[in-house]
């Protein structure tokens, strides 16, 4: 480690001496992790705007299925929404693209891409990522995959429409749905690129955390953000390649006549040539990534919440070691529970029993985390900054959404609520809303670090409160739709009179969704105007302990002007008895007889 560190030090010094960066090397093909973090964030925000807009459109369709809306033909064009009436396959396309964009492009790349890049080097005391070039490559491949995905929206037959899980044969055979033509091909290409960038990023994060920690920064002194991002990267490296293999096999089935996932298909009056494959195989491969994926989304949010809650509660995070152990436990269990998406897929019922067991085990480390967050708040001195409010709300939605996991993870109950609105409510609360809250929390908290300016706190409060109310307003009533047996991904519920008494619930949900989406404009305004006109930030506005607040406000290549800081203590010495201030940064030496790591 020391050799690498020395090399890194020298490298950093070299850069201090000559600042001859052009616009292109500084802002576009930058190898500086801070700039790459900003690139990921802004790309993620743009994708987020698109993904959320899509959800508003299909929510309007499901609430008022018989109406026509001008906004449909404005945004979707007369082909996809003739006369303002959304076509039924376009409804499915919007659902599919909303899921894909939000899960992969916003909550995976936008969240962990941004904060891994920003925080890993800054919080462990490194000059940059292990490989700056690979880091740059990772972002640009991500940008390319975004472009490919978005270009599929302009294909004549429509974008991929088989659901974000792209189960074959629906996704494999063009005759089954128009979106499975060119749209699906572009989806698969985009996803292959996405996986490539994700692997490059993850490997970089892992190597950086292992090799480039500054002197004194032992693994047990790492801030929980870095722990979470590190574990996220490991889970990503383990599971993403499996999705790549599934995507490649699906490409073979679609274009080269193989039958990995297809067998005995009679469509549009003819028997197709496929024989001997199984769609269930695809489901296994997909969910082997797909389930860890939801943890790739939630773990960084947990890391951010741990840091933001401790800092703003002015209190050490409760049970630091338990938090690490539960992160590890969640990460490990997440790779052996994928079958709970498949209880009724036709796989052997014995497997169902096994997956029920492993799935419900995840509740244990999750409960430990939730209780530890709550105990951290207890007897704190809470500074209600917008970032902190989002972290508190993160814990709230994580609990609300996580609890219903007990129902869905139980194979017996899953028979009834599988693929109904109940599951939509569950995963939107536990990973969608929670992860978005984690992301907002991170943005509000580290904005001063990223841009050297402060975001407007009052706009932040308004953004938070209306978002918080709308998120519950949208997803809480949705559970009841599911319990009434309403399946997801229905273009309209009017074909089933038995769901007629649920019309008012759907309208209520849509109204909350529209308001919740519109209020994000306040955030966007606050974000972009603060980059240029926000109040200038001081070096350590939140009085945090971690190393990123010891760097100068102005970004420099190499992060620290002189030598790298040396770490003497863990990251959570907030309100430590015996100190005047209520925080003791990590680079302050221990006093004589002082114990580290929460002991006192």
């Amino acid at each position, binding site marked *: 480690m020391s050799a690498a560190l020395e090399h890194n030090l020298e490298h950093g010094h070299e850069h201090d001496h000559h600042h001859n960066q052009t616009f292109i090397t500084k802002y576009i093909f930058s190898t500086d992790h801070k700039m790459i973090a900003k690139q990921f964030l802004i790309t993620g925000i743009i994708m987020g705007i698109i993904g959320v807009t899509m959800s508003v459109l299909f929510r309007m369709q499901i609430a008022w299925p018989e109406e026509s809306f001008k906004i449909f033909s404005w945004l979707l064009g007369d082909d996809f929404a003739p006369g303002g009436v959304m076509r*039924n396959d376009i409804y499915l396309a919007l659902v599919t693209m909303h899921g894909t964009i939000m899960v992969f492009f916003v909550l995976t790349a936008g969240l962990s891409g941004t904060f891994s890049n920003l925080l890993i080097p800054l919080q462990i005391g490194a000059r940059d990522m292990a490989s700056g070039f690979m880091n740059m490559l990772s972002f640009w491949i991500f940008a390319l995959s975004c472009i490919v995905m978005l270009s599929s929206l302009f294909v004549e037959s429509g974008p991929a429409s088989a659901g974000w899980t792209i189960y074959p044969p629906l996704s494999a055979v063009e005759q*089954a749905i128009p979106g499975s033509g060119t749209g699906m091909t572009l989806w698969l290409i985009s996803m292959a690129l996405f996986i490539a960038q994700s692997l490059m990023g993850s490997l970089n994060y892992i190597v950086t955390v292992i090799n480039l920690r500054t002197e004194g920064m032992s693994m047990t002194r790492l801030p929980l953000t870095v722990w979470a991002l590190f574990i996220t990267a490991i889970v990503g490296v383990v599971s993403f390649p499996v999705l790549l293999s599934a995507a490649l096999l699906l490409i073979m089935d679609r274009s080269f006549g193989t039958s990995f996932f297809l067998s005995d298909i009679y469509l549009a009056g003819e028997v197709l040539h496929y*024989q001997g494959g199984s769609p269930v195989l695809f489901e296994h491969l997909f969910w082997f990534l797909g389930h860890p994926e939801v943890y790739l989304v939630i773990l960084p949010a947990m890391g951010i919440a741990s840091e933001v809650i401790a800092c703003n509660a002015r209190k050490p995070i409760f049970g630091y070691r338990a938090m690490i152990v539960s992160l590890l436990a969640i990460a490990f269990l997440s790779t052996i529970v994928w079958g709970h998406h498949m209880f009724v897929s036709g796989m052997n019922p014995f497997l169902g029993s096994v997956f029920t067991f492993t799935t419900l085990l995840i509740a244990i480390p999750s409960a430990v985390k939730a*209780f530890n967050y709550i105990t951290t708040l207890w007897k704190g001195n809470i500074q209600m900054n917008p970032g902190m409010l989002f972290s508190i709300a993160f814990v*709230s939605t994580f609990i*609300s959404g996580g609890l*219903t996991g007990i129902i869905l993870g139980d194979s017996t109950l899953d028979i009834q609520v599988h693929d109904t609105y109940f599951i939509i409510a569950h995963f939107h609360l536990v990973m969608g809303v929670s992860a978005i809250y984690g992301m907002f929390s991170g943005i509000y908290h580290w904005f001063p670090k990223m841009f050297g300016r402060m975001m407007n706190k009052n706009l932040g409060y308004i953004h938070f409160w209306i978002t918080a109310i709308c998120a519950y307003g949208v997803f809480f009533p949705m559970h*009841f739709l599911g319990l009434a047996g309403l399946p997801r991904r229905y273009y309209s519920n009017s074909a089933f009179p038995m769901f007629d008494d649920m019309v008012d619930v759907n309208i209520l949900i849509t109204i909350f969704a529209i308001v919740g989406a519109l209020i994000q404009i306040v955030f966007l305004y606050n974000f972009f105007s603060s980059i240029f006109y926000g109040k200038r930030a001081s070096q350590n506005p939140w009085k945090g302990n971690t190393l990123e607040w010891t760097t100068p406000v102005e970004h420099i290549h190499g992060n620290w002007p002189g030598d790298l800081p040396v770490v003497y203590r863990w990251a959570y010495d907030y309100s430590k008895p015996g100190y005047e201030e209520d925080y003791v940064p990590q680079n302050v030496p221990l006093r004589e007889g002082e114990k580290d790591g929460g002991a006192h």
Partner: protein
Amino acid sequence: MTSLLIIGVVVLLGIAIWQLTKIFHLTQTIKQKPAHESESEIASERDNNVNGYLLFGFLGFIYALMIYSCAKWGYMPLMSDAASEHGKDVDNLMWISMILIFTVQIITQFLLHYFSFKARGIKGRKATFYADNDKLEMIWTIIPVIVLSGLILYGLFAWNNIMYYDQDEEVMYVEVYAKQFGWDVRYSGEDNTLGKANVRFIQGVNATGADMSDPNSHDDILASELHLPLGKKVVFKIRSQDVLHSAYFPHFRAQMNAVPGMVTQFAMVPSITTSEMRQLPETIKKVDKINKLRSQRSQELIAKGEEALTPYEFDYILLCNKICGRSHYNMQMKVIVESEQDFKKWLGEQKTLGQRIAEEQAGNEPQPAVEEEAVNQEEEAVSEDNTAESEEEAIEIENIRG
């Protein structure tokens, strides 16, 4: 008109936000000059206070939403009147889980928001340095372990009861066959054995591709409504001809995917007939409510010069619950549970597949020779595949026994 309304809403929202910002600004009384300009964007004591109270209020909002939702939509016949024998177990477990979840939700949300409110920041106060307590952490590890063990055990017992059935039991085999965008059923006929099938045999009335060279196929009966006898174990053999579908019977707590190239199965015993179900007070109440809404909607439609909606009458239903294409939202089949006598009478009125194919051929004579040849070739091509499938089925049955 709609766009005008939307613009109005946006403008109003904008004004509301502007006013709210002003209120927030007013709550921050002007103090002495801050040490750094960034300080005006960091939460002041006033902010801590205001947001602390708001968080406590938010707890009220969560509770209110829970109570309102349960009161308004919590009446769920789907959670209490399972129309199948195993459904009672599912409902029972659902209630236990629900009560548990609501209890934990109420307590933890209270603690979270109350602590946040109680510990809202005050200038000059220091938080309690409290970093660890092994005993506490042990408690909230052990309690979930115990509770979850109970749930897992109950769940697994129920799961095994539902998914495995005794081969010696007297059961009735029914094929549920999915295609874009509808369902077919094939009864196994007098021999209670479904003939072998493959999509390559689909032709004319033989819509589910029964292999007519298998003698078991001839007495099979195709139908477009699913009739089930009360109190008898039915084993659904579920197939799909094109993409993934899911056979979802919400009233029976039954669901299984239909997978092309594979036969999946689900067994259940219907325990309430359709007419009994229609008489239940809960059903009558729900149907009345729906019909009231439908007649309102009909009046609107008539005013627009469109056709009125037909009144709703309760029926069990089979619906597709796996995205399967553009008309996924309208892929359904009526399910009728009746007494064994009525069922036998109905089944007796249906023609067998053998009869129907014979009729069809009689009507179509003479057939072009070319087509016949093609069919022969096809049959040859699939004979191999058929043995593979029957082997698969044998393995499946083995699994079920195990």
